[in-house]
Every structure is written in structure tokens, then in C-alpha cells.
């Protein structure tokens, strides 16, 4: 149960990151390939302030967010006028710098030894994990409601216009750079806040948590779910992280000797699913006009189908290995 709660909390963190990336890339066309940098900055900064300086969680979070907002604003100023490829490289570089600093600045981060223990923000008897989950849930639901309204708002319309044709939007009196800079600063800072919340969730931080695969997981989720739909990121995370990481890794009936294969099979299926979506539905599972009713029906169907497919597939593979093992044993006996 505790592990499920942890997994679900982590799932919510991924949903939050995908929501922010949706604003950056889906609405504004800013290809932020440094998601893990902003998330990791928030996570480690909150951790360091709490462990090394004994700050309270809230103080640490506020300080970290202010600092990250300043950094994101500065970074945005440098890169948001550039071509998309340049933004992509710059944000990757940013996340690499964060990851590197975490390893080298041992006086603060403890380097590869790891940093701990980070306590939950709300400490109420035995319920702190559940409370933390509720905080994350409220955060994600709040963000989702805001996103859905954003899509129908004037600001949302302006963001889409900037993504489609920035020069034309500017010629109609829209300060496109300012809109991008603000949105980038806000969403990057929220990625850091999600990082801070993850610090409490992980309790013990090590540099190998700050890896590009987190960025890729969020991107895959968003592209899979539909980058232009308000719910795209969330649906994408449910499918990738929800089904594969939580359901299959934890609950699928795989015999222990083959469990070690599951992460590889997972990666393979991620890739296969992504290729299939890009080939047959380049906008992602949801395009920008998909109705909520269709999403519900579609996602229930998809979840059922993929669980069945994956479980069947895994059991076939398991059977295959068993028969291989049996044959090998037979050969040995002979």
C-alpha cells in the first residue's frame, strides 16, 4: 500500500510536469528539453536548504521557487528569441549544468553519497504520506482546471497564435517575446515546485535521479497523449507511467526469475507505442478538438486493451522462457 501511494504520488508529479510542458511546447512551441533540470533544481535546492540549513519545508520551497524564477527569467531572456533548435540545445545544456553541479558541489549536495533525510511538509501521525499525495492531487487538479480554462481564454488564443506565426502576431500588436518569457518563467518555476514536492516524496536524494530519461518520459507522455490538448499530458502519463511502471512492474503476474526483463520490455513497448502513434496519429491520441466524452470512452478502451495485450504478451514471454528453461534442464539431465 505504501509503495502504491509512492507510485501514485510520483505519477502525479509526472502529470504536473507534462501539464507545464504542454503550456511550453503544446501552446507556445517552446521545446524545453531540460525538464529534468528545472525539476531537479527544485528538488535538490529544497533538499539542501532543509538538510544542511534546517530550514522548514515551506521556507525552503519559497526560497527555491524565487531563485528558480529568477534563473528561468534570465535563461528565457537569453534563449526565447532564438530558433527552436537553439532553445532545445540550451535547455538540454541547462539540465546538464544542474546535474553536474549536484555531483560536484559536495559541500551542499553531498555529491554521489546522497542527501537525506527530507521530511514531509505536513507531519500528522501516520498520515503524512497520504497528506502529501493529497497535496499533489490538489496541485494537479488545480493546474488542470486552469489549463482547461486557458484553452478557452484570450491568453490561450494568443499563445496558440504565437506558436503558429509569431511574426504575424507581433504585427498585430502582440508582445510575443514578453508572453513567451512570462509563460516560460511561470511554468519552469512550477516544474521546480513539483521538484520540491518530489524531494519530500523521495526523502533521500542522489545525483542519479537527475537523468535525461525523466525529460524523455515527460515528452513521450505529452506527444503520446496529444500535445495540443489540455488533457493530453495527463492521458499520456496514465498510459506510459500508469500502465507500465505502476501496473505492470508492480502487479503483473510475472515469475520472479523473469521480472528482471520487465524494464526492458517496458522500454520496448514505450518505443513501439510512440512509433505507432507518430505514424498513425501524429497529433497524439487526443487532437486539439477531441471532446471529453470521447476521451473517457477512448481511454477506458485503451487501458483495457493495453492491459490485456501486455499481460497476455508477458505471460507468453514468460511461458516461452519457461519452456526454454525446461528444455535446457532436460538437456542437462540427458
Amino acid at each position, binding site marked *: 500500500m505504501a509503495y502504491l501511494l509512492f507510485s501514485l504520488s510520483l505519477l502525479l508529479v509526472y502529470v504536473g510536469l507534462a501539464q507545464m510542458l504542454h503550456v511550453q511546447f503544446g501552446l507556445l512551441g517552446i521545446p524545453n528539453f531540460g525538464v529534468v533540470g528545472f525539476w531537479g533544481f527544485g528538488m535538490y535546492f529544497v533538499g539542501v536548504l532543509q538538510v544542511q540549513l534546517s530550514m522548514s519545508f515551506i521556507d525552503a520551497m519559497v526560497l527555491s521557487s524565487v531563485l528558480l524564477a529568477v534563473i528561468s527569467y534570465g535563461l528565457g531572456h537569453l534563449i526565447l528569441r532564438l530558433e527552436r533548435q537553439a532553445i532545445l540545445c540550451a535547455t538540454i545544456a541547462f539540465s546538464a549544468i544542474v546535474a553536474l553541479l549536484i555531483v560536484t558541489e559536495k559541500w551542499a549536495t553531498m555529491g554521489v553519497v546522497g542527501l537525506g533525510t527530507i521530511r514531509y511538509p505536513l507531519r500528522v501521525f501516520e498520515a503524512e504520506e497520504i497528506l502529501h499525495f493529497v497535496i499533489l492531487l490538489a496541485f494537479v487538479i488545480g493546474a488542470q482546471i486552469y489549463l482547461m480554462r486557458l484553452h478557452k481564454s484570450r491568453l490561450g488564443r494568443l499563445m496558440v497564435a504565437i506558436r503558429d506565426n509569431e511574426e504575424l502576431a*507581433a504585427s498585430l500588436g502582440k508582445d510575443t517575446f514578453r508572453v513567451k518569457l512570462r509563460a516560460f518563467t511561470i511554468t519552469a518555476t512550477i516544474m521546480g515546485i513539483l521538484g520540491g514536492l518530489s524531494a519530500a516524496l523521495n526523502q533521500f536524494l542522489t545525483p542519479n535521479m537527475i537523468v535525461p530519461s525523466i525529460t524523455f518520459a515527460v515528452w513521450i507522455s505529452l506527444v503520446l497523449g496529444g500535445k495540443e490538448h489540455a488533457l493530453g499530458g495527463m492521458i499520456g502519463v496514465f498510459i506510459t507511467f500508469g500502465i507500465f511502471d505502476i501496473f505492470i512492474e508492480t502487479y503483473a503476474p510475472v515469475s520472479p526469475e523473469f521480472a528482471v526483463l520487465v524494464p526492458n520490455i517496458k522500454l520496448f513497448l514505450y518505443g513501439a507505442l510512440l512509433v505507432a502513434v507518430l505514424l498513425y496519429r501524429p497529433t497524439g491520441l487526443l487532437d486539439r478538438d477531441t471532446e471529453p466524452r470521447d476521451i473517457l470512452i477512448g481511454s477506458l478502451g485503451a487501458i483495457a486493451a493495453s492491459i490485456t495485450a501486455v499481460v497476455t504478451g508477458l505471460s507468453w514471454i514468460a511461458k516461452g522462457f519457461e519452456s526454454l528453461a525446461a528444455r535446457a534442464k532436460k538437456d542437462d539431465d540427458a
Partner: protein
Amino acid sequence: MKLHMQNLTKSYHSGHPVLNVPDGTLGEHGLEGLIGPNGAGKSTMMGLLTRRIAPSTGTVSLEDDTDLHTLNALQSHDVARLGLVKTNQRIQGFESLTIRDSLRLAATSHADETYRGVLTGSEQDDAIEADIDGYLDRFKFEDPDGFAKSGGEKKLLDILRCMIFKPKMLLMDEPTAGLPEDVTNEVMKMVGEKVKSKEMTVVIVEHDLELIWKHCKYVHFLSEGAILFHGTPKDVKKNRVVAEKYMGV
């Protein structure tokens, strides 16, 4: 609203100026035309005036009823906010926005596009909706609630976007290219009305000389980067330089 150019030049790597205007004013006569052969520098001039292109030397300034604004330090959105807007020669558009949303975007003030507005709800602005309905009644689109489909519709939408923005001065870069004749006539009729009621001054860059002679009060002739002659259509038609360099007589 008037546009002044002083010592305005633009040269690329070679150093030879593609545009060189020691002194010039556009917009004194309500509806003006700017003509000239291919490569004369018409599009460069348009780009310089709206701050899409940075000049090599010189200044561009915009004179309205009260002030003289120097445009050199401004970005293109600032220029638009002062009231100077340009329609595009090549087809431009927002592919994810419907015709109505595209017009709403142009008509909505940037001050209303806020994060707070997302929460307080962006109820429709009745004045803007009425404006849009007016334009869509006058100009027929195949699917007015959907997307602009043909090149002609996109071109027309580009012009309407500029109109609904309510500029004080409008530059039109080859407005008729790609538009059917009846739509062109209707657009020119509308432009004429707006100029007559002093809502805006208009400068048209056009190869279709018949249109220029028919509608413009004043014509500037640009060739090899310089304004060689300007005057009423009658004077320009009679001018020998224009005849030699452009009309091939």
C-alpha cells in the same frame, strides 16, 4: 496619420543601397499608391516602415494628431500599437485558429490577454463580436465558423484582420494578388469608406496599375531604391521617367 522618412537607407552585404530615401512622407493624401518595377525596393520600404527590417541609416517617424513618434527604437508590436499595420504580400495566417478566432485575436486588446482573465472567465466582448459579424456578412467565406481554406480566403482574412485591428494607418502590400476581382472591388470599396470617414490613411503597393489610377489620390513612384517622382495619378501617368522606367513606353 503620416509617415516620415529621413535619410533612410538599407544596404545588405555588398554595401550598395537597395533603398535610399533622403526625405519622404507617406499618408498626407488619405489613400496613396506606391508603384515601381520589380526590385525597386517597395517591399524593403514596407519592411522598414513597420520595423520588420532594421534600416542601415536614417529614421522613420510616425506623426499622429498630437505627437511625432520615432519608430527606430521600437519593435514591431510597438509600431502596431501606435496604429501602423501592414497586410502581407505573401499568405500569412494562424493555422490553428478559425476565421472568427483569428479576427477576435486581432480585435482584442493586449491588455485583456492576462493570466487573471483566464480565471475570471473570458466572456465574449459584444462590440468585437458585432464587428466580426459585420465583416463576415460583407465578405463571404465558404465556412465562416471554420477555417480559411483557399489562398484567396487566407489573403482576405489577412486584410480583415488588419481592418478589425482598427489601425490609424494601413499599408497594403499587393492586396489584390490572389484575390478574385469581385472581392478586390469590395475590399477597395471598404478601404475607400474608411479613408473617407478619416478612420485611417492607407498606402497601397500594387502592380495592378488600373487599381491605383482608379482609387488613389496620390502616387509615389519608386525605382532603383529611390522615390523618383510623386504626384496625382494624372501627373504620374504623364511623367516621362515613369513611362520609361516602368510602363515600358
